[in-house]
């Protein structure tokens, strides 16, 4: 019985929950708690799928018809092995690719850009600001962004990028890229990666607000949003309007974070509790 519950839970956490969670846009106001919830649901989904196999073992041990029970145990073990294999493969694949792209880009930036104390400056009129995460991280600004923003707003932009680097937001994005890639195409739910992408931006915006105030942060967002062509090909909305709206709405009710954290705790521990029950 419990193995089926675990399999059902895996489906629930991997395919049903992401869609529902992406629709609860209010949680974006509590970005840190929301990120924890997204991670808990992903980890919980994986744990539930993997726990289904060991949960079948007790059936084999005290069953009257061990051979008949094998029909249940073997497919469960195979499914677990496939899931582990896909995750490891995707992890290796995504990790290598990202590290290579970042290293190549960092080397290029180090050669062409002007070196300043905290940042690298690309001598180019198009305003842009980004960071290259990793062990040798860089914050990169273009001359265009230096020309477009007064100092206070520039500080907000740098604080935003620093927050990405300090908080290792790249690891979060990498984790969700791996999970997304590990799931076969038709079963994939792209909501998680998209929402996590937005949430780390909101989190970094909060850091910028703490550093430079909300007015400077909001103005920097507006100036840069107006100076760049949107990525029309993506077919999804850009993050700027959502982020500005969240800045305007201010901090959430504390209960919202509490709710997200409780949900996260439940999603991550339920598979383990079920597994323990199967063996009890």
């Amino acid at each position: 019985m419990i193995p089926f519950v675990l399999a059902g839970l895996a489906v629930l956490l991997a395919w049903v929950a992401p869609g529902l969670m992406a629709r609860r846009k209010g949680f974006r106001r509590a970005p840190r708690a929301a990120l924890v919830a997204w991670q808990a649901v992903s980890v919980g989904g994986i744990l539930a799928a993997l726990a289904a196999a060991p949960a079948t073992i007790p059936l084999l041990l005290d069953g009257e018809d061990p051979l008949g029970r094998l029909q249940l145990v073997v497919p469960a073990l195979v499914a677990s092995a496939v899931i582990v294999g896909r995750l490891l493969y995707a992890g290796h694949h995504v990790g290598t690719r990202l590290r290579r792209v970042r290293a190549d880009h960092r080397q290029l930036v180090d050669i062409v850009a002007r070196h300043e104390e905290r940042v690298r400056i690309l001598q180019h009129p198009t305003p842009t600001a980004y960071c290259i995460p990793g062990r040798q991280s860089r914050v990169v600004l273009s001359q265009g962004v230096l020309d477009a923003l007064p100092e206070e707003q520039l500080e907000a932009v740098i604080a935003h990028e620093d927050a990405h680097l300090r908080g290792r937001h790249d690891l979060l994005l990498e984790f969700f890229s791996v999970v997304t890639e590990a799931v076969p195409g038709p079963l994939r739910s792209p909501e998680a990666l998209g929402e996590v992408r937005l949430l780390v931006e909101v989190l970094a915006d909060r850091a910028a607000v703490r550093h430079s105030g909300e007015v400077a942060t909001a103005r920097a967002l507006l100036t840069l949003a107006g100076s760049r062509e949107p990525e029309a090909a993506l077919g999804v909305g850009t993050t700027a309007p959502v982020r500005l709206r969240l800045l305007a709405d201010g901090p959430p009710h504390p209960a919202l974070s509490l709710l997200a954290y409780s949900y996260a705790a439940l999603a991550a521990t339920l598979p383990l509790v079920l597994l323990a029950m199967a063996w009890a």
Partner: protein
Amino acid sequence: MPHSTSAPRLGDLERVVMEHLWEAANVGGPLFDGATVREVHLRFEGEREIAYTTVMTVLDRLAKKDLVTRERDGRAWRYSPADTREALTAQTMLRTLDDMEVTDRRTALLHFLDGATTDELADIKAALAEIEARAEGEQATSARRRTIRRR
């Protein structure tokens, strides 16, 4: 430039060597036909102590990365920048925007902003107006509090 006794990092040297080559190309103009390892090495004189073989290694690495091109000149190679610094900068900028596959790029580099459409700009401006109004309101309140306290 502070003198360092430890071996300087190769990445740092790559930049300095590229700068030397760009400068030489600028000075030489259309007549510039590349610099040999020896010529690049000479440019370091008085600036910092670098072994000849190190310069050779760095130029070799740069050639492998297609940042410099080289031509045989007798027994030596003559190295030239593959592109001007401006062109390479433009290329770097472009790479952050459309070179990679879209999902990968957005995970590899974290941009401050992904741009906005004209419709979205209107929403953004409305939200900014709210934030500014609130900030002014807060300022006014705290100013009033200060006046009250002073009395």
